[in-house]
């Protein structure tokens, strides 16, 4: 049987507002930009994406679940996304709950704050994964069995960690430099693990939709369901499953409604299930059904980003490294304060998007529009971030008057 594994990722960061050095010490709200039209106005952005993507796509997915008893999918939803939805679009939570009640929607575990903590502080990573698990249990009554790390950043250590903590599988990129001739269409054993399975993103089939669907310069444009199905059938010859993994916002936000992306998706589900030799699997099912003994090792970190499949868009320049070290450095002090608001504000600064906005890697070839950012420049992003960190330090100093050095 041919198996399709559909996995969509839902995330919105709490962007730092245009937070000036002159706000440090008296304005402790880093997240609420009073200017509605500011790029960093989180409420506006969330409501916009909710209208263009989250609401219509969730409704479509729910309809598919209701019409097709064989339709299944997996989602990862960050804690910071859930908080924003609870505040600004609670109907989305209701839709998600209706979906998970069908028993055919599996939620993937990850860090609550969409952070890169795995590479900076394992204790922090563990506590964020636990916080996320608790939130998922509270809202959806299920416990994640498959784990993903932020940006699908994976190496063999991630697998060992996941196995130790009782996970069944981990999601990673099916990158040619790792796989060589091997197909991404199996649930390989993770190197160094006994039971843990690796689900590898089939980036060709995933990016046909996520990146190329609306690209008129693509020779295959327009992508019809017939053509795409033919490719999926061809792909199914090379393994046991095809893992389609992409950002949820692909539908309606990154690729606009006008391109026909929603109709394409609905028709694809219908046509795929129209053939009795085809099915959908959730990620846990895929770990069992796609399983092979052969193991895959990723000794260095591989992500699902950019042509390089690395983390250079997050950590590639000196500003990003300085910013991320500066924020992780404060962990012990912040936690010791026992001030929940302070701890939450600090953790929101761990969200990987903040350092991503400081990326300068494409300035070299002049392709500055490749990286989306709510700020005028990476340098502004850095300044606002560092200013908010300065304020965190003043709050720490107040909590513990004599002990803290607030010097920059």
């Amino acid at each position: 049987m041919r198996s399709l594994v559909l996995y969509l990722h839902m995330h919105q960061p709490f962007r730092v507002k245009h937070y000036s050095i002159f706000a440090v010490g008296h304005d402790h709200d880093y997240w609420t930009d009073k200017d509605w039209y500011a790029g960093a106005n989180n409420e506006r952005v969330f409501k916009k994406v909710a209208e263009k993507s989250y609401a219509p796509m969730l409704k479509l997915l729910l309809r598919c679940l209701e019409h097709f008893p064989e339709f299944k999918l997996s989602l990862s939803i960050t804690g910071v996304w859930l908080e924003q939805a609870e505040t600004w679009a609670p109907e989305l939570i209701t839709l998600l709950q209706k979906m998970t009640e069908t028993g055919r929607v599996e939620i993937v575990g990850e860090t609550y704050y969409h952070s890169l903590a795995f590479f900076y502080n394992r204790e922090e990573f563990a506590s964020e994964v636990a916080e996320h698990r608790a939130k998922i249990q509270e809202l959806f009554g299920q416990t994640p069995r498959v784990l993903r790390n932020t940006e699908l950043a994976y190496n063999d250590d991630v697998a060992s960690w996941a196995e130790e903590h009782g996970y069944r599988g981990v999601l990673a990129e099916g990158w040619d430099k790792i796989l060589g001739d091997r197909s991404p269409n199996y649930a390989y054993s993770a190197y160094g693990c006994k039971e843990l399975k690796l689900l590898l993103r089939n980036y060709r089939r995933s990016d046909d939709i996520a990146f190329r669907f609306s690209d008129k310069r693509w020779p295959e444009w327009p992508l019809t369901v017939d053509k795409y199905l033919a490719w999926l059938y061809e792909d199914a010859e090379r393994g046991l499953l095809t893992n389609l993994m992409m950002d949820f916002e692909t539908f309606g936000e990154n690729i606009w409604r006008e391109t026909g992306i929603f109709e394409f998706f609905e028709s694809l589900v219908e046509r795929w299930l129209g053939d009795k030799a085809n099915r959908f699997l959730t990620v846990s099912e895929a770990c069992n059904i796609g399983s092979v003994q052969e193991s895959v090792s990723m000794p260095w970190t591989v992500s699902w980003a950019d042509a390089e499949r690395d983390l250079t868009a997050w950590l590639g320049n000196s500003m990003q490294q300085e910013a991320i070290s500066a924020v992780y450095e404060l962990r012990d002090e912040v936690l010791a304060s026992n001030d929940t608001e302070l701890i939450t504000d600090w953790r929101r600064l761990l969200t990987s998007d903040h350092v991503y906005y400081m990326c300068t890697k494409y300035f070299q070839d002049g392709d500055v529009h490749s990286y989306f950012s709510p700020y005028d420049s990476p340098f502004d992003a850095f300044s606002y971030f560092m200013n908010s960190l300065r304020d965190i330090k003043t709050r720490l100093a107040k909590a513990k008057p004599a002990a803290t050095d607030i010097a920059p």
Partner: protein
Amino acid sequence: MLGWELPPHNSGGLGVACFNLSKSLAKMGAEIDFVVPYESDHDFDFMHVLSATDLDPLFQYGMGAYESDKVNAKTLGENGHYSLRDVQHEYCEFIKQYLSNNQQPDVIHAHDWLTFETAIMAKKNFGIPFVAHVHATEFDRGGENGGNPLIRQIEYEGLVWADKIVAVSQATKDMIIEKYGIPADKIDVAHNGFTTQREDNYHFDGSSYQYLEDLKKQGYTIVSTVGRFTLQKGLAHMMRAAARAISVHPKLVFLFAGDGEEKNELIRLSAELGIAKNVIFTGFIRGKQLRDIYSISDIFVMSSVSEPFGLTALEAAHHGNALVITKQSGVGEVLHSIVRYDFWDEDKLADALVNIAESPALTKILRQNVQHEYARISWDDVAQKCIQVYDEVKKHKRNIF
């Protein structure tokens, strides 16, 4: 090519731009007769320099090509009194003579309002296509009061008569559209290039500013700005931002290099803000002293309310400065690794200065990355653009006799 100055007889960026552009054009096969309003002693192998008058080159420094209010002022020359208007008249007569002697260039390329009347004459009377190159408008030079109405009128007529206009930045193009109502499709943008040629023989030995060297050793960050002290440069905003920045990060020293009508006001303001000891006025400087300013400073600010291009920013970048530039400065359009702010946004400027001063990583990335960017800006690209423009306007050529 109708110009007003060439190095070394230049008082500003106009001469440098004309020289480098002509050199690149010649390399691409253009034959150039370059006309200057003084007795030429230039000897270039890539173009002919023609002298429209027999005035001494030194003479034009006093004529106030950059100072609107001196247009009609008489200056004593060897052969009597001349005003700038007199010289422009003689310049025009010279070209009339030149064109009457069967010299028929394909295109007349005129730089700024100074030579626009001559170019209009050539187009009206001889049918020569006219390309107007705008390095600055009178609105840029004149600040908020809009400058001299006579110059605005000449500029307007030139822009209307021109077959095509080349502007040194999008900011300048926008200004031409907004202030003179010229249609956008008549204007092409060609950002000025940058050549390090003037810098090649320069070596920083720290001798000019030992006091600043000592301050740096004590952890001070040096912020500089270079230019004429006029309203257009936005220096009062910068001074207030300096005070804001110092209130958070006291180890900042500001170098204001240049001179002009605003100087006394700026000195008074620095005292009033209580930061006089953190502010140094160097007076007018050029040559090695100017290079030394760039070398010693960490951050270069271009605070202009309106700046058609802003070559000094590239010079500062070349000497390793982090750049903080207003969104109203044209040079910012071609650089990515800079901090940009609106000229009135004193808090944003102060914020940038403090963050750069306190972050080695931010300083390093701004300094290093901008190096790749300014080096890419080439005069050959400007020349290429001009040749395209020439090809377009050449078909406008007509014989009216």
